[in-house]
């Protein structure tokens, strides 16, 4: 394990969520209402009017044509000027707001980079598990307190906010052309969980490393080519599975298998009723069992922890299921972005959302943990662990579809299969 690197990452994570000690300085600015042309554009218009009034008929026609040509050529410059002035106005307004509240799970190291870039906008971070944060946001709203601005609370929890109509559409927040330009993003469009493609933005799509892990002294990766191979008798009582009936990677992994067109309920039913699998709810316990050779294979665990254990010298590794028959699975890694309705700091939220989805922001997200492969295509992927990167031409199943949200059918299949297995064995 590279200790120094781990320490550096931790410091970054830790420093990012410390509120700035200095108070927020509010810059006195006069608010600008509506569109105001830039000085250059105003000068050009005045000159044009002056010249046009003093011309002959033919000269006017020629001049009009030339002007039209100039307008076509100059329009992008004006558009650039428009987004820039909107961006500047938003930043100023955001600085007046001074802060925004970010409800989040998982890593927050990249927040430090945002605060360094926008030192007058403080990120007030509320951390927790996705379901806890969902409960808190809904309770606050029902209590008349609209405190959340931006939320990163997983894949399922923001969908409940969407159903509760507690979110506002994301596209109106986009100001930077590099964010708006969908051609810069994977499959040429912005990705959303909701079918309206407006509310729960998915900026990350990593190849899942959470599906299958193994003891490298007991299993040769070449032995396995398909999920169905795991149902072979030789793996009977050799598999530990993270419980799909509880929230977390166990549920996400089993849900991905359940909705996979080539796996489905049949795979889960046979896995849990025939293979005498061991169930655990503790990722660490399952990885340690794998390393101690109590089990050969682990399913639906925390792949990042497995890779960390491997770096520490344990004989464990994750399977790149992208090369398996069923292909790999792309997952957001619980990294989705939603903008709360009635956001108390709309401008600071917009600045944060734009920064987060910009090249700089997405690079920061990728650096923070090295497992979140941004769906932006125009940034370097060198900070990512190779296994988490999408490969060109590879076949992937996308796991952030709206119809995948409901885990209950999968959990029912698992419970029934386990009960059947217990009776049989």
């Amino acid at each position, binding site marked *: *394990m590279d*200790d120094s690197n*781990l*320490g550096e990452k*931790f*410091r970054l*994570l*830790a*420093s990012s*969520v*410390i*509120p700035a000690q200095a108070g927020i300085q509010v810059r006195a600015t006069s608010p600008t209402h509506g569109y105001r042309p830039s000085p250059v554009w105003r000068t050009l218009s005045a000159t044009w009017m002056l010249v046009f009034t003093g011309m002959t008929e033919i000269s006017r026609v020629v001049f009009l044509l030339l002007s039209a040509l100039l307008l076509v050529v100059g329009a992008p410059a004006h558009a650039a000027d428009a987004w820039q002035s909107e961006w500047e106005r938003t930043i100023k307004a955001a600085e007046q707001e001074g802060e925004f509240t970010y409800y989040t799970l*998982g*890593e927050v190291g990249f927040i430090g980079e945002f605060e360094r870039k926008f030192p007058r906008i403080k990120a*007030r*971070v*509320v*951390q*927790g*598990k*996705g*379901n*806890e944060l*969902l*409960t*808190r946001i*809904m*309770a606050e709203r029902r*209590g*008349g*307190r609209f*405190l959340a601005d931006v939320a990163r609370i997983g894949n*399922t*929890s923001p969908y*409940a*906010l*969407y*159903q*509760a109509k507690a979110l506002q559409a994301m596209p109106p927040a986009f100001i930077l052309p590099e964010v708006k330009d969908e051609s810069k993003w994977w499959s040429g469009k912005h990705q959303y969980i909701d079918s309206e493609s407006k509310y729960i933005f998915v900026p990350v799509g990593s190849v899942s490393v959470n599906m299958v892990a193994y003891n490298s002294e007991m299993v040769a990766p070449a032995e396995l080519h398909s999920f169905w191979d795991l149902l072979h008798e030789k793996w009977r009582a050799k598999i530990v599975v993270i*419980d799909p*009936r*509880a*929230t977390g990677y166990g549920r996400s992994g089993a849900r991905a298998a359940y909705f996979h067109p080539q796996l489905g309920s049949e795979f889960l039913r046979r896995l849990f009723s025939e293979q005498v699998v*061991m*169930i*655990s*709810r*503790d990722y660490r*316990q399952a990885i*340690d069992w794998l*390393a*101690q050779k*109590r089990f050969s294979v682990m399913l639906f665990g925390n792949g*990042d922890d497995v890779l960390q*254990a491997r770096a*520490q*010298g*344990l004989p464990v590794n994750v399977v790149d299921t992208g090369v398996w028959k069923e292909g790999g699975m792309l997952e957001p890694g619980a990294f989705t972005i939603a903008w709360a309705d009635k956001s108390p700091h709309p401008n600071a939220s917009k600045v944060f959302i734009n920064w987060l989805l910009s090249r700089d922001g997405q690079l920061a997200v990728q650096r923070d943990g090295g497992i979140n492969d941004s769906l932006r295509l125009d940034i370097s992927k060198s900070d990512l662990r190779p296994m988490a990167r999408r490969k060109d031409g590879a076949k992937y199943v996308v796991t952030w579809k709206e119809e995948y949200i409901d885990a209950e059918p999968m959990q029912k299949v698992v*419970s029934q299969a386990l*009960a059947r297995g217990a009776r049989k064995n």
Partner: protein
Amino acid sequence: MAKTETFNAPAVTRSWLPPMDGGTAIMAALIGFMGFYVLYPLTLIVINSFNTATIAEPEVYGLDAWRKAFAEPGIWRSLWNSIKIGLVLQIVALPTGIFISWLLARTDIMFPNALEFGFWISFFLPGLATTFGWMLMLDPSTGLINSWLRQMPLLSGLNFDIYSFSGIVFVHLVSNGISTKVMLMTPAFRRMDASMEEASRMSGASAFTTLCRITVPALTPVIIVVFLLSVIRIFSSLETELLLGVPWGFYVYSTKIVDLARQEPPLVNQAAALGSIILLFLAIFIPLQRKLISRRQFTTVTGQFKPKIIELGIWRYPATAFVGLIIFILDVVPLLSVLGGSFMTRFGFFNLPKTWTLEYWRMALTDPRILQGLHNTLIVAVSAGVVGALFFSLIGYILVRTKLPGRGILDTICWLPSAIPGVLAGLGLLWMFLGTPIFRPFYGTIVLLVVAQVLGGITLATQILKANFVQLGKELEESSRMSGAGFWRTYLRIVFPLMAQTMVMVAVIKFMFAAQHNGAIILLATSETRTLSLLALDQVAAGYREVASITIIMITVLTLGVAIVARSFGLKVGIRAD
């Protein structure tokens, strides 16, 4: 310290209790105050159990959540499993705890204070550390003790499996099954008047017969309370069963409740419906406890208090060795698990290329959030300890010493929070704080964390204080009254010193609960108000489990530091056998 002060009886005696009207007013205020803090969130939880809508929908009321909750597969088996663990655990832990408390407080065992503190250490150590430590020792295939046994010629057939019912009971026993009882009962044993035991011995009874026939019956209130608290506590136990029970399909009731509350989206209504069953247990326990305690006179501290100790003679050394061995089992494995594990690259793996590392300590100590977390923890835990001990001692005193109407209601209110698992209690508090105008301005500040943690552990604090007040003879206070002292003077000059050890213990327990437990505050904190225990959770969530374990060590050291200071203070001001 226990000697009775001599007062000169004044010509006119003042009433030492507030006048009836004032007393009723105090009781009404206490019921109103406690009722609001306890019943309001509880009512919100119960109301929510009838809400059949999902978290995203407007409320619709019905019985669906109840039907679904109790139709959960294995729900009744899990309830039975919880009861089974609770009963088997108490059958072993209660007599062991009584016996050790008696040895420490009533006999001339060697190093009684040091040995007693050994149980405090065990009580303050995180339960998870004990579970991990014993998993390392007793895993059926890789456990260190099992590996050692396999190499021994005559013992090779022995193989302990920690992933079993007995394994779960054993871990509960060594985590705080015994230590809680010793910690709570030793002060009560210490305060017991020796004259009754002396009479028994004079009548020819042995020390053991005296213990069974005189000492234990005299301490019935404390023993019943400790027993009930332990039984109720088993309904909130979770981590041990998750690690040791789930792998072989053994589920307990708390697992089911927490599962529902932590679903995405959370099924709070169903979790609340299941939680209500624990209230049913309380409905049986509370009247039973009141009946048992009120049936007899349990006064053991009187004006003629005689705190003499029993000489063990030849048994002094084996007794010391026995208690020392128990402490070794209780403390050494979790201490090594916590401390040793923090220096290991990966806990439990001794054959890695780099087995030991200081990196995690460096990371923990240079974390800029640590000072802020420490600051917040001290504010919350000190407030909870001091305010909690003083406030709840007043409640305990009023419940035991007055005949004011409404004592049963107040007592019941104090029991109720023990029935609510932390995950639901936190939610109830969140709803209460958001729904009460007086609290709204403080939402997001540390004030509400303090309020939440002061009120945490109400049951434990009031019941322990109450059980100890029952032991206190009235004549000391009556002497005070005859000498002209009023209610408050009697309380501060007579009751307070006599109860000092118990109050110090309650303050330390509340400090520990506030510093270590975060169920009540997890939904209330922000990055500015985060305590060390919440920081540890954030560190785990970010994948820094080892660093989180060091944060937990810091909390434990902090708590033990407070315990040492408080204990030395308590021993100085409390009743001593010398």
